[in-house]
């Protein structure tokens, strides 16, 4: 049999929730280990190796030392996969990009002496692809386990994973939900990439856009819907801050 692909999992600035989704595969983790060799995964194992084919990278990039480390990972990996919203789009970490890094440091650390310490040398929060090329994306906050499995099996079979390029509404409709707009709520589903099985609207929460926007908030069609539901551009900008701050551009991967 062909050698199993070696997989390493890395994290940067994040809550490790996506790694937890993998760890939580439970019995299926055994299946996973059948098809790949996990050579590094700090959250669940002590061993570490720099010999890997696939790097699953979680978290946003905040500091020059993170960038360096990520570049190192990129060099080692044949395939680099961004895991979860922090890595794919910057996610909640980008909320702080609203302010200058100095202001943020001051807010958090007050007058503590951290200047000159590279661990505290923080810049703007970045998604992985703002630092290195990324091959594939597993979107979401947290990631969807089924989608994770789908991407891993595709990579193990040597095929390109198929990630939806259409909005959450498609899956929401298949789930036969009452539309959040009909319930008087403001949902980002129409402009957010599907693949989550519309989990939020299905549990009666409007979509917050954690899988990234596939349409600009400024497009004519979004304006039309905002108007129809008595919302303003300011409202949608605020809604997008949660996961998509500064990323209101269209990321429709043609």
């Amino acid at each position, binding site marked *: 049999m062909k050698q199993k692909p070696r997989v390493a999992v890395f994290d940067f600035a994040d809550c490790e929730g996506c790694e937890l989704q993998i760890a939580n595969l439970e019995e299926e983790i055994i299946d996973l280990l059948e098809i790949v060799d996990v050579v590094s995964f700090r959250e669940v194992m002590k061993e570490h190796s720099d010999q890997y084919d696939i790097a699953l990278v979680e978290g946003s990039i905040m500091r020059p030392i993170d960038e360096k480390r990520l570049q190192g990972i990129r060099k080692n990996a044949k395939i680099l996969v961004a895991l979860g919203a922090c890595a794919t789009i910057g996610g909640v970490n980008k909320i702080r990009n609203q302010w200058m890094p100095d202001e943020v440091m001051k807010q958090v650390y007050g007058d503590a002496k951290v200047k000159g310490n590279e661990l505290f040398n923080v810049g703007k929060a970045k998604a992985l692809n703002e630092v290195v090329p990324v091959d594939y994306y597993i979107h979401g906050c947290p990631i969807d386990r089924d989608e994770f499995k789908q991407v891993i099996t595709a990579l193990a079979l040597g095929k390109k994973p198929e990630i939806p390029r259409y909005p959450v509404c498609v899956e929401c*409709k298949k789930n036969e939900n*009452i539309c959040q707009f009909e319930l008087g709520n403001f949902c980002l589903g129409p402009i957010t990439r599907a693949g989550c099985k519309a989990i939020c609207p299905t549990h009666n929460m409007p979509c917050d856009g954690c899988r990234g926007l596939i349409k600009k908030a400024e497009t004519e*069609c979004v304006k039309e819907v905002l108007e129809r539901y008595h919302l303003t551009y300011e409202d949608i900008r605020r809604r997008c801050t949660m996961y998509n701050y500064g990323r209101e551009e269209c990321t429709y991967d043609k």
Partner: protein
Amino acid sequence: MNTLRAITKKELHCFVDALIADGTYDVVGVKAKGKRFVYGPLDHAEDLRLDHDVTILPPKKYFLPPLESMMQYDLKKPFEVQATFDNKQRIIIGMHPYDIIALQQTDVVYLDEQQDDFYKKRRDNTIIIGSDIDAVSERSFAGSMNTHVADTGFDVLISNIGTQYLLTIGSEKGKQLVETYAKTKEATAADLKKLQQKRNTLLEKYKQKVNITTKDWPGVLVANYQHAIWEEHADTCLECSSCTMVCPTCFCYDVRDQVSLNLKDGQRVRTWDGCLLRDFTRVGSGEVFREEVKERYRHRFYRKGNYLPARYGFVACVGCGRCGIACLPDIADPCNLINELASFGREEDTERFFIKQKTTVEETGIIHVPRSATVTRVEHFNDLDTFFEIQLDDGKPLGHKPGQFVEISLFGIGEAPFGVSSPPSDTPRFEIMVRTVGNVTSKLAQLKSGDKVGVRGPLGNGFDTTSFEGKNLIFTSGGTGMVPMRSLINFVLDPKHRKKFKNITILYGAKQPKEITFMKDVDHWKTVCDTQCEVTVDRCDEKECWNGCIGLVTTLFPKIRMDMYDSKNTIAIVIGPPIMYKFVIQCLKTMGIPDENIYVSLERRMKCGVGKCGHCQINGIYTCKEGPVFNYNQIKQLPEAFE
């Protein structure tokens, strides 16, 4: 004739409860979900809401589920693939007439000569207990579509006539069911009158009305194909396809292979797709055939109001109003759109979007499950193109005509269409050539002799070679267009057939010398007397050795020995990438070859290959059924075909 029985409210409840208690059937019916309604499993008769206005999703979810497993396989023994049939016996209670009519329309498409076995099974296993409409949905316009009442298509129909209910028996199955489980009385003439009254007053409840009859839909659509309205509306379209998801008459689907995490077993699934989504027409090369939102937005209305009416005689909209509710910018409602269009004008000639040519498709039994086959020869022509000889394991010949195609499956990866490149044969062997572009093609390129693949087909129409007899033939192909062309050329050059045709010219253009495929055939054709064969390349890298022509395939036309050709008695066949057609056809016209003597073969995204999934549509035409071979004269006017 339908028989009518009367039943009290209490007895109706007992009837439903008896059906649930019996356990033979999975009993589903209309239930409340917040302020809306949905079909769902019934635990008690009380949950059944016959007073519903409309459900969020139509009952199509029980016949073509949003995600449906079509077949399962063991990746080690993929040739033992098994279709996965849903054998559940089901009763659906509460279907409104418009949904019953929508289901009858789906029957016409899914139960045609290429019958969809999964759908058929579900259809056979389902008993439909319909319900007359009590509450009219605010957006429904069924009244003006004549879909607010149904005379057929149900096994039983429940009608609330105030004091009690009437059961119209629509089938033998329905009769049995009522006799076994319900306590009913003979309906009286007075009951019947009440029912008539109810239906008459129902019409008045509709606030939404289409101002023209369904007969006139094609005319207003065709007259306004280029109207600015499409763009105006499409500017506000979210490309969410909610309109098609909730529609009872939209049934296009995508097909995917899913593999379990242990890479041991897999399944092929189909899932609802929508023509408003950009990827719906996207092919491996990255080309999207309906790139503009306007084109996709328009396509949906033309399919409903023009393409299916011309093909089957019904407008594929039943006026349920679901899309009007679902579309956030409120541009999806056919009632509003048709009324707006009707104010602009109409046309009598509505044939422009079709071709009259109707292909008879042979009944081939199970249409979705591939036959097992073995790769018997692999040849790598260059780093992109791989040639395969494939043998069907059942030992039967493929039975194809030149120009037909097959769907080749790699279990766990997917399925893709390929032209057959060998001439018709009575052995179980045939040949294809695969250019690597995406998942299926890349994996195919790695196969070795002895590996297994799945085969469906032959599919599509192919060339009618008898109509070419006694004629001069000019074959022009570019790129992978040579694949099906080779089948045709080798058929006519076969000594058994050669005498039936007159002069033959073969023109072939490739991007660069290494992309010239079937070099051995080309060399052979060049030596065959009374056949002219010319090859050109667009460009030649310095490293490559090439002493032939350089230039587009059109540069070869001056070489044709025109003196030998009576253009009226010449047939030209053109197969190549989309951009090639315009230029080559211009050359042929200059030569004086009439449009009706020109044949082309077109490529579109394909999934099912049997006229169900909707991906290959060029306006009203299914490329997989009426094509891929077309007479140029018949489709030159067809918008979208060559643009």
